[in-house]
């Protein structure tokens, strides 16, 4: 499953990385592959972690959710376990994409910063696995899935600065990028992997930490209210 879901990030990396590369370079912004690699890693972490939470829908559809909801285990424990499980898979996926980026020619400014990049990936994964749990707990059937995909997940991705720099944007767009938690995850990755960022790395860490707590609380609350 992990390998199968590498297709989309790979496509983004190769098509956008090499396709937009010459234009990006002509505009004096350096290598687009270098720029887009943290964005593709962030995308991979975002999609995998959100879908792990929304995966509750499958548990609901196939009945397995009932088994966990009637067990003598506090629901918050089940929710945190599921969130951390999803976040772990998403982080592993992010690492695999990082390896693919390295094979494709991406080079971090320093290998010593990789552990800090891992911290950013873990926090980003927890943020969006928590959000996925909050959404998955409220969705009743598969019909809402497409809605969430089009109106929540894709905007989060496209507004995060994964594909374009966050400088010089119209004020509305600039505001939207600043309230998007993924912006801080990807910008944090850029800061440690490329040495260039829009926000202070400490600010990105603080935002991701705070939002992860918020989404865990939101996910925990939604999960505790599930009725079947």
């Amino acid at each position, binding site marked *: 499953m992990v390998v199968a879901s590498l297709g989309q990030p790979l496509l983004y990396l190769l098509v956008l990385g090499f396709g937009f590369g010459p234009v990006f370079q002509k505009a004096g912004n350096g290598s687009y592959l270098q720029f887009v690699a943290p964005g593709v890693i962030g995308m991979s972490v975002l999609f995998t972690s959100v879908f792990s939470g929304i995966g509750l829908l499958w548990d609901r559809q*196939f*009945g*397995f959710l*009932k*088994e*966990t*909801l*009637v*067990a*003598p*285990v*506090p629901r918050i424990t089940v929710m945190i376990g599921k969130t951390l499980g999803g976040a772990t898979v998403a982080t592993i996926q992010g690492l695999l994409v990082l390896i693919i980026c390295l094979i494709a020619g991406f080079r971090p400014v320093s290998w010593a910063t990789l552990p800090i990049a891992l911290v950013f990936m873990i926090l980003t994964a927890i943020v969006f696995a928590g959000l996925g749990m909050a959404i998955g707990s409220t969705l009743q059937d598969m019909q809402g899935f497409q809605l969430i995909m089009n109106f929540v997940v894709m905007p989060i991705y496209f507004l995060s600065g994964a594909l374009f720099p966050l400088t010089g944007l119209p004020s509305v767009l600039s505001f939207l990028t600043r309230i998007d938690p993924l912006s801080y995850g990807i910008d944090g990755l850029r800061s440690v992997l490329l040495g260039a960022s829009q926000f202070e790395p400490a600010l990105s860490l603080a935002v991701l930490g705070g939002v992860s707590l918020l989404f865990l609380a939101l996910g925990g609350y939604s999960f505790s209210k599930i*009725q*079947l």
Partner: protein
Amino acid sequence: MEWLKMIKVENLVKRFGEVAAVDDVSFEVDAGEIFAFLGPNGAGKTTTIKMLTTLLKPTGGAIEIDGLDPAKQSYEVRKRFGIVFQDPSLDQELTALENMDLHGVLYHVPRKVRHERTEMLLKLFELWERRNAYVKEFSGGMKRRLEIARGFLHTPKILFLDEPTLGLDPQSRNQLWTHVKNLNETEGVTVFLTTHYMDEAERVADRLAVIDHGKIVAQGSPDELKQQTQTDSLEGAFLALTGSTIRDEKGSSADQMRQIAKMWRR
């Protein structure tokens, strides 16, 4: 002497919008009793079980499980019961053994006991040879047998069985009820069951209640119900109490299986 009440339900109501799925239902189940909850499709049996097992919050009325309120003390209540659901609830991506083990972990069954009981139950329901096969590769009957084996892994105070024999062959049904009787007699487990097979209810239940359109229409022992309706079989009593019109119901997978089974029996 007054028997200890394991389940007490008073004026229970559950509404979904305008529809009252359960409408002012009251009954009691003594500790150590086998109680059958019978009714046609869509009568409110599963909704009642869901409220008793903390999966649904009632709209009105009161429930006590071993003296506890499921709405306020859900965690404590969950420690006291085990359940075999009407619809599938296995993880298809795990093996039979992994499903059993996960259940044991969720119910805090010590590792040694968990392994011993898993082996005993999988052998009892003739699944031991396929213990390492993925559930998604199982036939419908095998999945059902595994659900039941899993439900028996821990020894709860109360066992809820929601149409446990649906889709089972006579041999497996016999094994199931023999095991239920044995658990009830040796461990004192209180059993609350629903079934559409009247012969099974008559065979195992001490007392039963019949629910129709969300309301209890009769309660008592099988003999009392037969006497009350002046019929000579429990099926006759059931039809006399609930009528012979086929009920419409939203088709869950379990209901569809039941309809297909009915068609084939004709």
